[in-house]
Structure formats: C-alpha cells, structure tokens
C-alpha cells in the first residue's frame, strides 16, 4: 500500500512555524522529518512517523505555493487563494526575508549578480548554511535591490512599502542595498572582525546624513595647509591635555590620523575609491589607535575634540560641510572601534 496522493487544504491556511523554519533553512522533507522526530514531537502528540511525513509534505507544498507570492509581499495581502490571518501573513513575510548573519557578511558589498550567485556553493560550504537557504537569501537581496534601486525617496520607506517588512528588517535591507550599490569592500581580512550590525549601523548613518556630490575635496585644505594642520593639532592638544590616557600617543600620531580621516573624505568623491572606505577607516584610524591601546572613551574624546576644534580655525570656511562629514564619520568610527 503506497500513498499516491495525500493532501490537506484548510479554509484558513495552516502554517506551522517550526516547519516553516525548516523549509526556510533549506532542509529536504526527509531531513525536516528527521529533525522534527528529534524534537520529540512524536512523544508529545502520539503521532506516527508516517503522520509526520504527510504533515511535513503538506506544509512544504503550501510554502512552495506561497513562495511565488512572497516574492512580492503586497500580492500575498491581496491574493484570494490562501486565506491567512494578517498576523500570520506578517510572520511569513518577515521570516522569509530574514537572513543569516554569517551569510550576509559573505555577500555584503558584493555585486548582486550571477557571478556572485555562483559563489554561493562556497559560501554554503563555508558557513554551513544549506545552498537552498543561501539562494533564497541571495535572491531576496537581489530582488529588493532591483525594486528599490531606481526609486526616489527614503530607501527604508520604499523597502517597507514594497516588501512590507518590519522596521528593523527594512533598515537592514536598506544597508544591504546601500552596500551593494556602493560596492563597499567588507571581505578583507582586516575587516573580518566587523559584524553585519557594525556595517548596517554605518550604512544608516551614511544614508541619513550624506548625499552624493558634496564637494568633500574642500576639506583637504585641513591637511594640505601646514599652518592649518598645526593650528588644528594645537587646539586639540590644548583641549585634551590631561584628559586623555593616551595623550602622548595621540600627539605623536595626530598628523597621521588627521591625514587619514581627511583623505577618506577626498576619496569619497571618486566612485572607484569609495569601495575602500571601510578598509581606509580601519587602516588609517582604527588600527593605529588600537595598536596604541586607546580606550574607547579616549577615542570618543579625541573625535569630539578633533571635529569641534575646526570651528576655531578661522581660515577654514567649510564648517557646515565638515560637521556633516565628521558627524557621521565619528559615529561610524566609534562603532567600528572594537576588537
């Protein structure tokens, strides 16, 4: 006796959260059944393995049918085929678009193209995430990217409107889109210590405060003009003397640090060089400070003073631009400054 056909269709579509997770994680029906058995569900419910198999198949089929709609979440809300309570619809969408930290770190800043898709095999092996799940996550990134790429208005709002994601998740996607668009390098070995959260934090600050085309070259004068640089240094040193544990190191390094920070600004005007932003920040600022064992509080003191002191430089006329630049950069650097 073999089951040729075995289905269950409810007027309200049954969604089993646990099975949904297994499906999203890319497990085959067989693996999913095995995992469910291991969870002790048979003992809890007194069901048989055959019942579990049939149930899992049913849910997988439902998810498979829903997947097409999940690609355009507003469709899920308006479709008539599956009657799903709103809270469940939200759960389906949110979980479908959720991603693994390990995965996103691998593709963050990469071009969301076919080439990268081919690398998914390697990523799957490296991260232990099933290839199926990697594909889903990658396709999600790509889909969101494609939809909002050319859109005007707030990136987060656009994502929320077209994918009905929670605020948190929409922000994450905004970061992913932002990184993919600017192709920021995040994979270098020296950047490995940074989490997706670190990058997303920076992305959000940058999205909010920075606009393209600002003439950041004007800031270069701060390091190019030797008098201005010396004056800036003395202002900072005067203000921080006795307040900084690593004062001498700071004093010795000031010009290098300042050059690094200002040069980053200059590089941002060249699209090609933009992708090195995080590499530069880590190389030119985070690493030197870290090697001198600056505590985070000292970094904060320094950065505050460093950006504030510029107001006292009479010869410098781009105060507003500087504030916008440094305000964001300070936020990013403080976030990036950890082990």
């Amino acid at each position, binding site marked *: *006796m*073999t*089951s*040729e*056909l*075995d*289905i*269950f*269709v*409810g*007027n*309200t*579509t*049954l969604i089993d*959260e646990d099975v949904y997770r297994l499906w999203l994680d890319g497990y085959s029906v067989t693996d999913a059944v095995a995992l469910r058995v291991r969870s002790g569900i048979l003992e809890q*419910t*007194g*069901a*048989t393995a*055959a*019942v*579990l198999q*049939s*149930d899992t*198949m*049913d849910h997988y*089929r*439902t998810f*498979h*049918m829903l997947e097409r709609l999940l690609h355009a979440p*507003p*469709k899920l*809300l*308006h*479709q*008539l*085929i*599956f*009657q799903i*309570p*709103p*809270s*469940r*619809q*939200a*759960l389906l*969408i*949110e*979980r479908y678009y*959720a991603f693994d930290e390990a995965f996103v770190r691998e593709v963050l800043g990469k071009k969301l193209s076919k080439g990268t898709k081919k690398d998914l095999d390697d990523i799957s092996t490296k991260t232990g995430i099933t290839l199926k799940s990697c594909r889903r996550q990658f396709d999600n990134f790509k889909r969101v990217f494609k939809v909002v790429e050319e859109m005007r208005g707030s990136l987060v*709002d656009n994502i*929320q*409107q077209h994918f*009905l*994601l*929670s*605020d*948190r*998740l*929409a922000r994450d996607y905004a970061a992913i889109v932002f990184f993919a668009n600017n192709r920021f390098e995040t994979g270098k070995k020296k950047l490995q210590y940074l989490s997706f959260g670190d990058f997303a934090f920076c992305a959000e600050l940058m999205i909010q405060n920075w606009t393209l085309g600002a003439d950041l070259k004007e800031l270069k004068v701060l390091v190019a003009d030797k008098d201005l640089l010396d004056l800036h240094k003395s202002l900072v040193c005067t203000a921080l003397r006795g307040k900084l544990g690593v004062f001498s190191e700071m004093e010795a390094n000031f010009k290098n640090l300042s050059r690094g920070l200002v040069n980053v600004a200059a590089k941002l005007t060249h699209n090609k060089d933009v992708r090195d932003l995080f590499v530069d920040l880590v190389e030119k600022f985070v690493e030197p400070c870290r090697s001198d064992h600056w505590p985070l509080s000292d970094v904060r003191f320094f950065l505050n003073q460093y950006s504030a002191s510029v107001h006292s430089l009479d010869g410098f006329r781009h105060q507003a631009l500087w504030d916008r630049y440094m305000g964001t950069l300070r936020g990013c650097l403080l976030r990036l400054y950890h082990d």
Partner: protein
Amino acid sequence: MPGKLKVKIVAGRHLPVMDRASDLTDAFVEVKFGNTTFKTDVYLKSLNPQWNSEWFKFEVDDEDLQDEPLQITVLDHDTYSANDAIGKVYIDIDPLLYSEAATVISGWFPIYDTIHGIRGEINVVVKVDLFNDLNRFRQSSCGVKFFCTTSIPKCYRAVIIHGFVEELVVNEDPEYQWIDRIRTPRASNEARQRLISLMSGELQRKIGLKVLEMRGNAVVGYLQCFDLEGESGLVVRAIGTACTLDKLSSPAAFLPACNSPSKEMKEIPFNEDPNPNTHSSGPSTPLKNQTYSFSPSKSYSRQSSSSDTDLSLTPKTAPYPQGPRIYLCPSSPSLSCGSLHLKKSCLLLSESSLTPHHSSLVSPVLRKSVSFSEELFLAASGMGSGSAGKEGGPFKALLRQQTQSALEQREFPFFTLTAFPPGFLVHVGGVVSARSVKLLDRIHNPDEPETRDAWWAEIRQEIKSHAKALGCHAVVGYSESTSICEEVCILSASGTAAVLNPRFLQDGTVEGCLEQRLEENLPTRCGFCHIPYDELNMPFPAHLTYCYNCRKQKVPDVLFTTIDLPTDATVIGKGCLIQARLCRLKKKAQAEANATAISNLLPFMEYEVHTQLMNKLKLKGMNALFGLRIQITVGENMLMGLASATGVYLAALPTPGGIQIAGKTPNDGSYEQHISHMQKKINDTIAKNKELYEINPPEISEEIIGSPIPEPRQRSRLLRSQSESSDEVTELDLSHGKKDAFVLEIDDTDAMEDVHSLLTDVPPPSGFYSCNTEIMPGINNWTSEIQMFTSVRVIRLSSLNLTNQALNKNFNDLCENLLKSLYFKLRSMIPCCLCHVNFTVSLPEDELIQVTVTAVAITFDKNQALQTTKTPVEKSLQRASTDNEELLQFPLELCSDSLPSHPFPPAKEHLESASSNSGIPAAQRAMTVEKASPVGDGNFRNRSAPPCANSTVGVVKMTPLSFIPGAKITKYLGIINMFFIRETTSLREEGGVSGFLHAFIAEVFAMVRAHVAALGGNAVVSYIMKQCVFMENPNKNQAQCLINVSGDAVVFVRESDLEVVSSQQPTTNCQSSCTEGEVTT
C-alpha cells in the same frame, strides 16, 4: 417577468504576463450572457488594467436569468494573431433574482482557466432589474429561495413544510462528443463547465416551478448532484423539501429593511398565497405558453431534456399547469424557431407520455436495461424484509389516521431535512434504504429521458414501502446517491422512517395550529424514540423495553437514524464518530454478468456493514446512531462499503449489553484461553470508552420502577416465525439469526479478523472529539474558532495481495491514518471537535482507492461549565415572538446554546471576539510574532503604511454546519453551487498529483469565498463538496479533476458584536464594520 441584467467591468489585477517581449499584457474583457456579447476596450500594457467600463445591459427573460450563467472572459489582445484567453469567471446571478437576498454582486473574482488555474483577479459589478409581470403561466420560478441547509434556516420560520421535490435533467457529456477529438482540452472543459452550469440553472428553475405549484416559496435541504455516466451521458439531478417560509423579524440592528423601493421591483408574492387559479386554468395554459417565445440563447438547453415523476406531488385531481411541460418536447432544432403547431403537438404528446408514471411501472423492455434491486433496509435493531409488517397495527394506524391523510396525497412523503421544528417529529422507526444496480445505456434519444426517472421512482417506491412496514408514513433525512463504474451504476436512497405531526404539513393557518397545540401536549423528550410500529406485529425481531425516560411507551434497544440528534433529546455523555469499513473483491465482468455479480454481493455487504456498526456501537457503550450514511462504491474489481454515523447514548433507550465472544470449538483449551483473553480486551475497551465518553447512566431508576422489560428473546423468536415475505432476500436473515445480537461467534479466521479489527480503531487523542452530525452531543460551549478543511488521500494497492482481508486492512488503515493525520494537524485547536466529518470513497482505477474528507474543527471551552440553560437575553428574544410562532419556529437553541455564555466573559473572550473579527483564530493570534516583526500590530501599519494594508481581503468562513458558533446569521444571500474542471499536461512540474490537487482545492475554496464576498456575505454554511473526481495519467504527465461544491452564502454577526454595538458605539473592528457596512446598505 423579464429583466435587465447590467454588468460593469471595473478593473483587473495580478494578471499573468502574456507578452514575453514587454513582460506585460494588453487585456480586454468579453461579457457574455446568452448569445449576446459585449467587449471592453483593450487596456494596453498593464498587469493591473483599469477598464472602468460602461454598464453593459442585457435584456432577457427571467427564464434565461435563471438558467444562464454570466460569462466573463479576460483576453490578451493580439494584433496579428488570435487573441489569447487568460481565463474566465462564471457568475451565477440567481441570488439577485429573489428578494431578501443580495441586491448587487460586486467584488474581485479570481480569473480561472481550466489549464492554468487562477490567473489574476477581476473586479465586476452585476445588477438585475426585474419587471413585474402578471403572466402567471411563466416558465421561470424567480423568487423561490433555495437553501442547502437541511433544517429550517435560522432567520426563518416554517409555516408549512410541503414535502419532496425532485427533478433531473439529462444531456450528452461534451467530453464524449465527436467534436471533443478535435477541440482543445480547454475548450472541452469549458464546454462541460458551461453545460453543467446551464443544466443546474434549468434544474433549479424547474424545481422552483414545482414549489410554486405546491404553493411554497422555498426549497430547504436542496441537494443537487451530477452523474458522469460517461458515454451514456450526463445527468444532473436534485432533491429538496418544499416549504413555505416566513422571515422572522429579528431585533438585530444589523438587519436591513427589506422594503427599500428598489427591492420592491423584484418582490415576489412571497408570503401571500399564489393565486389558486393557477391550478384550475388547465386548458388555457398551453395557449398562454405560446406567447412565451424562447430566446435564441436557449439553443443550448434545447438539447437537454428532462422528465418528471412527481405529478402526484400536487393533489392528483388538480390539473397540472403545463408550463414546464414544454421541456419534455423532442429537442429538435426546429423548435427554436418557435413554430406554434409543433409546440402544441408536443405538449399533447408529452402529456400522454406521462401517464405511465402514475403507476410508476415503466417497462424496462424499452430501455433494454437490466435492473437488479435489492430490498433491504436497516431498522431499529436489525434488518428485516420490508414486507412483513405491512398490515401494521390497526390501533396505531387509527391514531395516525389524520397524519396519514395529509401525507397520503403525496407520492413520496419524503423530507430531505435532518433537523426539525420542535414537535414535528413524533416517532422514529429506523433507517430505510434501497439500492438498485442498473446498466447504463447511451441516451440515444433525448425524447426518452424517463428511464433515469423511472429508476429513481422505483427506488423511492421501495423506500416508501419500507417505511410503511415500519409503521411510518414518512421518511425524513432522505438522500439519494449513485456510484458509477463504466456501464454499471448503483443507485442508492436512504432515510429514516418516521411519524410526523400533521399540523406542519397541512395548508392550515397558524390559528389552526395554535388550537391544536392547546389540545395536545407537546411530545415528551423521549417521544421520538418510541416505536411507531405495532409491538405485536413487528416487522423484524427486536428487543423492546419500556422507555427509560417516561416508562409508558415501548422503545427498541438500539436506534439507527439518518437525521441529526433532535435538540430536545436527552443524551448521556458525549457522542463519537463510528465508522464501518468494508471491501469485497469482485471478478471483473461485463455488462449483465457484472451487474448480477454486484447485486449478489450487495446484501452481504449491507449485512456486514450493519454488523460492524452494531458491534462498534456496543464497544463504545452507546445505543443509538445518528446521521448514518452508508456509501457503497463500485469499482472494476471490488466493492467498497463505508458507513459513518455518530454514536450516542440516548437516555430513553436501555443500556446496551456487552459483546460476548463464543468459540465454536469449546473443547480446545488454548483456544478457550485465547477467547477469554479477547473477551477481556473487549470488556476493557467498553469500560474505557464509557469513561472516555462520560457515559454514566443513572442505574437507580430500574430498581425503583421494577423491571417492566418483557422477555425479548421469546418475543423475537415468535415474530421471526411470523415474518414471511416473497422477497428474494428473506433468506438473508439480517437480524443476526437465532443468536443473541451481542454474541460474536468465532468459527474461522475471518471472524477472528473481524474481532481484531474492532479493537484496532484508535480513539482520538485526548482533547479531540469527532462526529458526523451538526452538533456534538455533550458539547455546547463552542468558542468561535473554526477551521473547515478538505483532505484527500489516494492509495495504490499492490495487486499481489488482493484478498478480502488484505483489502479490508488497507482500507481500514487508510481511514484510520487519515483521521490520525487530521488530529495531528489540528492539534493547536485542542480542545476541539471535528464536526460533520464527511467521508467519501471512490475507486478511480483498478488498484486505487480514493478517500475524501470534509469536516470542520471547532474549538470549545473546556473550563466553562456546560451551559444548557439559556441566558436571559436569549430567552427574551424568543419570547418576543408570539407564542404560536415560538412553537413553530425552529429552535434557536442550536445557535444560542453553542455560544459561550455571556454572563461570565473572561478577558480571554474579549480577545477572542476581537481576533475573530480580523480573522485571526485565537490560538494563532496568541502566538507572539517575533519582536522583530511587528507587521501585524498597529505600530507597523502606522509607520510604514503600506498602500493597501487596510484593504486586505475580507475573511469568509466556510463550514459544513448550518450555523456559525458564537454568531447569528442575519441574512441568507443565496445558494452557491459551483462546478470546476482543472486539467494539466505538466503534472510533474505542478508538484505531482498532490501538488496539482492541493492547488486546485485551494483555488476552489478561493472562488467560493470570492463569490460569497461579492454577494456581500462573510460565510458559507452547509458547505459540501459533492464531488471530487480525480483522474491521472502519470505516464502522459497528465491529470484531470472535477469538483462540485455547494452551500448557502450568509451574513453573520458575532454575538459579541451585537452586544458591543448595543451598549457602546465606538471601537468596533475596522474590518468587521467594513463587511457589515456593505450588508446594511
């Protein structure tokens, strides 16, 4: 009463991409009714076209309005090649044809294609203006209401229950026409869908005419089925119960005023008597008919022909109005040109050809059909031959003379109802059933469609005589079904023989009823259990005792019925689903030999099914079955029997004895040990079941009253000797012969298997109950969470092990596993009850068994004490109606008892009602969506404000029950009767057979919901999937499925909402107020 049909095409959405180059579609819409077609403009390059068309107006006869569906086709415009069809929507406009139902159909409909399934949606508005027409000799029956519900609908009162109406229409199946060889599968499917839709409309109209003739205004318990006879054609048949219903004026604020001027137009004399002249206008009728020219659009139905057997439904002396007779005419194309002479002669012809029906003896020679009919019926405690008790007891007969006279005028005193107004049901005799095996033959000549009618008439006649044998003059809970395999067809009919109170059946006025009511006492709660037959002349051997409730009348030891448990019956403990399952191998044979083989097997199957039911009932410690439905399915090489019923312990009936096992070889020691072991197991099971179902009958009463029980064994023996019959089947003693009914004799391995199988049925896991009736005895504190579902399983038998035993085991496992799966899937709803569990079995191929189950899971509140008393509010509601109404109207108890009682609404209940408005079942809502995903809560909505977050699809509930727990049905919007075909030539790509059928059933649900929503409703009650015919050809990567569903579209209002509105105005859920807004205006 011609009318104007107006249609507006508003917009489309989610259309499929039809132009690969642009990834867009140039869509336009064709709107077709009859032979008239309108088109919208082409909306270029969009998947969400906004046509916003003008009003397309069709001026049509109401006859066409009733028969024809509105057909909307969405196409993709192509300049150079033929336009590609995207899909279609068929809209049944019948609900717009009677008052009190829907006034407009407006909403999003899924665009359906038989090959691709649902492909986007279209927004349509449909209205009908009916013009009053004084011509009483019309062919339409606009205004007659139809209900699938097998009880008097909740917001109505039955003035008169007239009785049985039936009709059938025959046609060629387009799938088997020669043209099918050259047309595409899509064209063929669409031809079939359209034909069945037309035939259904025609059938409904004709039934409506019969109802009008009986001076009724509604059909309740309407059941329409189609028989796919293959080569020999397609039969659509329907039965129902004609009633005169009166709308109850409800205090609910939500009720729309029914007398808005726009509605007046189509107001039909609903409650006033139709002019009696209709009946006496005999000769002039045909003439008047001539004025009714057929519109050319009728050409389709012209092909179909139909017949009538129920002339005697009206008193035989009254000339039958000739209106519908015209349909008996030979369907020659020349008819459509409307020649006066031809029509007239036809009418005469048809009249004369009808006469044989009165005798209900149609010569089979004409049809060359072989008929094997078995006279079988199940009765109270056993089966017997129907002829034994025909004389009946003169004493009882006298008592019932009055009733008899009311019913005798009817050819078939049958009622498709399963629940009745209080006092309607006087006594119940037992189940009566009849089956007959027929050979199908191509309907060569559509002029001779009477064969099918004659077959059914024969069976009904049998049922009637069985009922008589049980001392009953009526049959309630009546239903008919067929099973077809190749050219063999088994026709089945069954019902419950009953004695009815005549006052509901006569055209007496309400005053008359009132008088009668004063004269006689209301029947006691145990009245229906009392035997209607004469105990000295019983039709079959039965053990009689004095009623355990009143101690005055005799009752049988076991009662089987096809009806729902009467609401006033006293039940001890809870009920449970009981199934008997059986397979019998049969040699493959042709034609007559095959039919003979089947007829020979049938009685044995009936016997075994009955024995299994009886044993399982005893094993549960119960003494009565309700909702019994026995399905016999015929396949190429086997017969399957599946009986489902709900077992209960009726307080009025005696405690069932246990099951005794007796060995045949009592000298064998080890054997005896085995027997005693088995006996112990059985006894343990009975004890466990009694505990599980809380069956603790009071035992004291016996001692107090003494033992009035007559010696049953002696009596039954006496009776058996008296029973004599000329029927072939008398030798088959269905009353368990000389054995005590409770003794199982184990004389061979087969019997051993039987006993084993008794013990293999696993009870549902704790927190689960199941029944196949409307309500579960012993549970009445339902909460509002419901989940209707359909589950289908097909198993392939390995042809090697085809023995009866192996088959039985396979079938049993199939059903048990299916139930287990259901319990597992619905575990989040515990404590919960599966209600109206409806199993159907079919044998699509040699080695395939298909089981389809539809049921509804309803949660109940375990913690709340059982509430049998009504809350004061409800009581006063009932008081509001006048006394005599209270007597006649259907009890509201069903609905009110099932409510969680309001005096103690814990916080949980408030949540629940709120959640149910937004369609979130409480349990599911209770689960917290992850913090990271607040999409569901208001916070998200406000923040992100997705453009259409508030216009999400409204929730439409579906249930096979006639009520919705915790809610009041305020309006019936009309009948939903839909037929779909889905076919695929890429089965693998669609996820195999399971993927294909899963998607299709989901689509069918969606289309039903969309139609209900467009009518302004928010639920379907009495929903039933009448047919699910699945065929596959995996080698060709093909599959096809036909599904037929029906139900009543309704508007319901949550009880909690009613209270909220009356006490405090604001803070009603947005969604619910939206749906209701539509309704009230």
